[in-house]
């Protein structure tokens, strides 16, 4: 309110000053016209101010609305399955995924869960050392110019469409893996893990670099004044101090790897299989798997969305479509937990400072 009054006051001041200027209007009408114009201007200012505030507000809440909207629709589509066909034990612990079987439809996503997990694991084994190394190099070891170039290149890595990555996996990695390892098929956990790992490098590098550069200069100065070499400085001071930020970076990379779809669909071989067993080496990276995301992407097109019968029950064919949405909910939950954890870690750092 005060601000508006101030505005009108300046308007009046401007008005009197403009009154000294020679103009066609007569002295009498200038007074009333001036007051009228001031009034209009004031109203316009208040209105435009409110409109803009309102617009910004809408933009601000829209993100929240979209998140809840997506969750609502995914949940709505999956809800009938949760109500009728869903048995938690079977769903999570059975590797039998036969949604289109004519006689015995079974919905177990254990194989897909394990598939997602194993691809993510290999991806992180590939990505974490590379990304942290790159992050440390960019933040601490290279000059200003190299840093800028490196950052642009790393971000360029993020700009490659995931289907192109899948293409590389299919056409480059596949024959290479067959040739090098003698595996019968090159579309497997290793292939997808490497591709997804490279895809999560940019996000990990960017956040790790930020975390490293956020380490207070006083620590670095102190260590340097004690005669620490560059590597001692990194190992004994910077990495411990940036620990939480680096962990958050890795977690966001995990989130990226879990959510990746197209490249994974093209590179895993897309077969229901659990690549673990009791035989050494326990984890067989040269076996094909199927992931949660790829299952949805591959099957959504052929799963019919059927309406409920008059009595509220669904035809058994409808369950496939709904089960896919439940997988969506599971994915949503996984990435949500990962992101929240990463966020809380990052917040924890800020609070400490």
């Amino acid at each position, binding site marked *: 309110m005060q601000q508006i009054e101030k505005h009108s006051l300046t308007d009046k001041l401007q008005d009197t000053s403009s009154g000294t200027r020679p103009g066609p209007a007569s002295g009498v009408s200038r007074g009333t016209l001036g007051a009228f114009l001031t009034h209009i201007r004031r109203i316009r200012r208040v209105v435009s101010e409110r409109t803009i505030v309102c617009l910004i507000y809408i933009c601000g809440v829209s993100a929240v609305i979209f998140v809840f909207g997506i969750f609502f629709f995914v949940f709505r589509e999956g809800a009938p399955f949760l109500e009728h066909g869903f048995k938690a034990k079977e769903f999570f612990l059975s590797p039998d995924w036969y949604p289109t079987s004519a006689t015995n439809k079974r919905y177990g996503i254990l194989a897909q869960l394990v598939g997602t997990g194993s691809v993510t694991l290999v991806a992180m084994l590939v990505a974490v050392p590379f990304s942290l190394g790159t992050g440390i190099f960019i933040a601490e070891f290279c000059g*200003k110019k190299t840093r800028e170039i490196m950052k642009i290149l790393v971000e360029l890595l993020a700009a490659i469409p995931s289907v192109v990555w899948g293409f590389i996996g299919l056409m480059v990695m596949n024959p290479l893996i067959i040739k090098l390892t003698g595996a019968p098929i090159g579309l497997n956990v290793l292939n997808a893990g490497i591709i997804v790992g490279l895809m999560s490098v940019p996000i990990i590098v960017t956040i790790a670099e930020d975390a490293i550069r956020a380490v207070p200069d*006083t*620590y670095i*100065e*102190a*260590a*340097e*004044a*004690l*005669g*620490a*070499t560059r590597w*001692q400085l990194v190992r*004994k*001071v910077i990495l*411990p*101090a940036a620990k939480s930020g680096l962990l958050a970076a890795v977690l966001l990379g995990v989130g990226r790897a879990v959510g990746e779809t197209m490249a994974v669909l093209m590179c895993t071989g897309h077969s229901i299989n659990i690549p673990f067993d009791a035989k050494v080496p326990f984890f067989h990276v040269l076996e094909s798997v199927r992931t949660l995301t790829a299952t949805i992407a591959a099957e959504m097109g052929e799963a019919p969305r059927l309406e409920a019968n008059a009595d509220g029950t669904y035809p058994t064919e409808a369950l496939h479509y709904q089960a896919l949405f439940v997988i969506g909910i599971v994915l949503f939950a996984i990435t949500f937990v990962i992101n929240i954890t990463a966020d809380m870690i990052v917040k924890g750092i800020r609070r400490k400072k």
Partner: protein
Amino acid sequence: MIRATSLLMTMYMVFSDDTVMGSNRNRPKYAIETSNLNLWYGDFQALLSVCSKIKAGIITALIGPSGCGKTTLLRCFNRMNERFEGVRVEGSVEILGSNIYDPEVSVVELRKKVGMVFQRPNPLPLSIHDNVAFGIKVHSPRRSLNKYEIDTAVQKALQEVFLFDSVKDKLRRKGTELQLEQQQKLCIARLLPLKPELLLMDEPCSALDAAGTEAVEELLLSLRGQYTIVIVTHNMAQARRISDECIYMLNGELIEHGETANLFLNPKDKRTEEYIEGRYG
């Protein structure tokens, strides 16, 4: 006869470990000699042919108004200025007889010999114990020190700065959790296990309250003799209290260097006199 005694003295000094850390160490008279030292930050010249001879074993204070180059000069002595971009140094700084700006000088070794304490206490985000042990760990080959040696060195250093009694039960706590005064003492303590020749102090008390300042000053006086101490201070009273010699700087030039009492009572230069009287700065 005199020669024989001095020879004996020298032998005693060489063979007795105590005297190496002791005050009557056989050291050159001057710990630092700078000649025609010029320094530029980009185009700005921060030091103008500074020639100084800082005596070993005493406390020398660098005084002068803000921006006169005293911190810059101090940071030349352990080459910390090289952290900044666009710094160019000309001239020479001889520390204990060797020019530290020679290309073959190892900065790591130099900083082992020349410790530095900063304006704001900056303990590392490690435990109190690890803060003090950081220096020796950094400068010894891996696994060459056993835990006992490290613990003894840490305890000795903390005792030397009068900190051991108050922190002996919490050596595993973070150094950053201590009070500021204790943090600053910790920052001094972590230099000592390296057996430095010189301690450079960049306004070590400016972040502390009166009691903390007094405690740190007491500590400095107790370290006097064992180490050559160069202290930058804004506080003329502090320079008078603790220093043996004083260097007055103005606009990157060394204006006057003399015994503290002399410099404050009968300054030779008009500018020094005016600064001491508080006409500017």
